[in-house]
């Protein structure tokens, strides 16, 4: 197992390099002089010249890439001119908030989605199946930002169950309960779409598995139906559900951008959108590379989980 994890970690290196190349190439599409674009309204001749020197912007694409990559490997993601602080500091400051939001949502959507999918498949065409199918369809059709806004309107403004927005109250204690209170609505709004997608795929994966011969074998052995569903079928279905969880984690991270906007959550997503609108290019570039790298590491964990589940993979 350790060997497999090491192998996956090593194989992540080219992927990370690839990610950096893609981000670099996209950023190289910026029209006009890069230094002027990066500096925007801070583009005095001295600033432009300094930036050109630091980032090698006056050189060709290839040397520029390696200068950029070298800087990043040393922890230098550049400097945000709009915020006047290093990009990495800003990203790290905000990453925790995003991690709490997206992590909670991810756990929520995995558990709810799989449970809903299994129940739906086990009760195919029954009432539970129809009800779940309808809710799921609603869930994947509603834009998460609209859902978030409606939740604010109903649960915060009308019913006053939860605070309207933010991660912490402006005044008062910062403890777990306060955090959960603030987290509940955004985490739920963020989880809805992914729950729907996972539930649908879990349902069809379960239906696929339940028709397999080994399920008939389990039944012919006299294994109890509950065990047939939740052990035999679900275990086999997990082989196709787990990769979906990996992909959905990316969707949760993506959706976090909208939810952070709607709920004024102080995360990386909101930072990125603000940075784009302010044309703070280096902050966008650094933030994207950082989050993408984290996502790659997360997907390695998904692969390891898959290998633990399916003995045929460990080769």
């Amino acid at each position: 197992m350790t060997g497999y994890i090491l192998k996956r970690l090593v194989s992540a290196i080219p992927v990370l390099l690839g990610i950096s190349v893609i981000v670099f190439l996209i950023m190289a599409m910026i029209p006009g002089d890069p230094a002027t674009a990066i500096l925007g309204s801070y583009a005095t001749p001295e600033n432009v010249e300094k930036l050109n020197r630091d980032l090698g912007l006056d050189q060709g694409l290839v040397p520029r890439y390696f200068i950029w990559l070298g800087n990043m490997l040393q922890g230098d993601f550049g400097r945000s001119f709009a915020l006047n602080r290093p990009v990495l500091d800003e990203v790290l400051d905000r990453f925790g908030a995003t991690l709490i939001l997206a992590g909670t949502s991810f756990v929520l959507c995995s558990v709810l989605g799989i449970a809903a999918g299994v129940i739906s498949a086990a009760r195919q065409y029954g009432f539970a199946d129809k009800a779940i199918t309808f809710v799921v369809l609603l869930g994947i059709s509603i834009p998460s930002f609209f859902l978030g806004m409606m939740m604010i309107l109903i649960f915060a403004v009308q019913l006053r169950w939860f605070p309207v927005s933010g991660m912490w109250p402006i005044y008062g204690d910062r403890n777990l309960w306060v955090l959960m209170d603030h987290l509940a609505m955004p985490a739920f709004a963020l989880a809805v779409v992914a729950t729907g997608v996972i539930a649908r795929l879990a349902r069809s994966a379960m239906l696929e598995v339940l028709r397999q011969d080994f399920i008939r074998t389990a039944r012919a052995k006299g294994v109890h139906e509950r065990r047939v569903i939740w052990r035999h079928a679900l275990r086999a279905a997990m082989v196709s559900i787990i990769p979906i969880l990996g992909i959905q984690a990316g969707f949760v991270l993506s959706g976090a951008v909208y939810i952070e906007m709607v709920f004024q959550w102080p995360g990386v997503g909101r930072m990125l959108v603000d940075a784009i609108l302010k044309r703070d290019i280096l902050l966008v570039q650094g933030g994207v590379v950082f989050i993408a790298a984290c996502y790659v590491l997360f997907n390695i964990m998904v692969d390891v989980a898959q290998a633990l589940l399916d003995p045929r993979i460990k080769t």
Partner: protein
Amino acid sequence: MMAFLKLLARNRLALAGLIVIGMVVVLALITPLLPLADPDVTDTPNRFKPPFSEGAILGTDHLGRDLLSRLMWGTRLSLAMGLAAAIIAATIGSAIGIIAGYYGGRTDNIIMRGVDMLMAFPYILLALAIVAALGPGLMNALIAVAAVNVPFFARNIRGITVGIAHKEFVDAARLAGMRDREIIVAEVLPNVLPVIVIAMSTTVGWMILETAGLSFLGLGSQPPQADLGSMLGEARSALITNPHTSIVPGAMILIIVMAINLLGDGVRDALDPRLKSGALSRPMPATTVDRQGAVPAAKTESLLDIAGLRTEFRVRDRLYKAVSGVDLHVEKGECLGIIGESGSGKSVTALSVMGLVASPPGVITGGAVHFDGKEIIGAPYEVLRSLRGRRVAYIFQDPLATLHPLYKVGDQLIEAIQSHDSVSSADARSRAIGLLKSVRIPNAESRIESYPYEMSGGMRQRVGIAMALANNPDVIIADEPTTALDVTVQAQILSVLSDLRRERGLAIIFITHDFGVVGQLCDRVAVMYAGQIVEEGPTAAVLRNPQHPYTSRLIDCVPTLGGGQRKLSAIPGLPPVVDNLPVGCAFAERCDKAHADCRAGPVELVKTEEARKTRCLFPEVVSERSA
């Protein structure tokens, strides 16, 4: 095409989706012709008018613009953006996927590594990066959304293409002189196209959401032009004071996307051939029983007695009578062979005994099965479950598919024991090792830790047999247990089964299509054709002196070793399809002795000799065949 539309229309939800989205599209198309206020003219004194106000049915927004007009124009823009993004992404992605999947090898490897890199981003990061580089704006958002979705299509379509490129008809096309490019266009593409359509119809809604999302963030359409997303984005600041400005565009997105998703699901269901046959339904824990008429009594005192069994498959409006009135019995320690061609109902008969016929679509519609004197068709699930594996056990055909791929064989054996016997895991484990030894698996102590994929076909089938023996059953029903195996392995498995049977006094029902196997293993044999037993009797007598023309001609069809090069005698025609059986003898069409009487009405299975029965009006003359 007509069939497709019919299938689509049958799905009421999809039809509703089609109607809704159709109306939205029509409205969006005729928007410029409608007498609407200019969507971009600001009128600040009249801002935030509530819905149903004079001159503004849906009210006005924060700049006093008519919401209805903005909604219509916004819908138009959002639909166009989503559709354009879907078409661009589908075209480019599918082209990449088909090329990678068809050519395979290094081309595939390099392309797919690139695709994997793109998929290593949470999708919005890539879109944000593209918009950051190109600058906010409608076209740039469109490019971003399309680009981000290309890898999804590429990967999906590549998977399908790989499957098709390895199909034998592609090889056949190559041998018929076609070049790669022609094969892609003429052979591969028509088979991939439905998948592309499915992928598109299920993602258009998603694309609309994504483009609306970018606009919501202020990165898509720029003021004053608005799509539904940017309307929502602009309304956000007035959410609490004037919620209607948010609800109007938000609800519209919800309606559009929901309608598209409903339609997309309908399209997928209509195009997916597996769903056409109704195959994608979950088999119930036990076969549905829907018996018409009286429950017949047991005809014999045997251990297992099947009387008048009828099992049907109900697929849509068709009715397949897989088993129509089978009487069988097995004594203690006896081996009964059931022989027949595919579709003769032999497996369905066997699976009906313990309610293991997949249901839906299978339904037991008549007859009774008495085990040890008790009727078990339609018995409560818990009764059936306690019999399964404990007193009546099964061995199935393909041992790779019938063992759970993710559990060790030992655990699967232990589970079989513990399902009926509450013994400690250690005891169950030592019993499992004993079972593996009894089927002559070498190194049973270490083999117990193996996964099925680590074993050869023969070894896996031994595990299948060991599992059937786990609770010392009285009857083992073996459904073509050696068909998937090589002859030398088959010989080993048959010898294991034959020895076990003698040692343990097992009753075996052995289902096969091979006369050689029946001849070697079985005491008695029943021959099935079109869901009925056509002949039954002691194996040696039936094989030496078949009375039903089908039995006799089927034996002649099978070449036996040692006969040398020769012309085989064949039975003309095909077995009847069981959804359209003739009134009379099902074999009459192919029988050279058929008489008008044979077709007139049902032929009964009658006793012809001691212990022999035949379903024929003109049984073969009793004459010793040269063996």
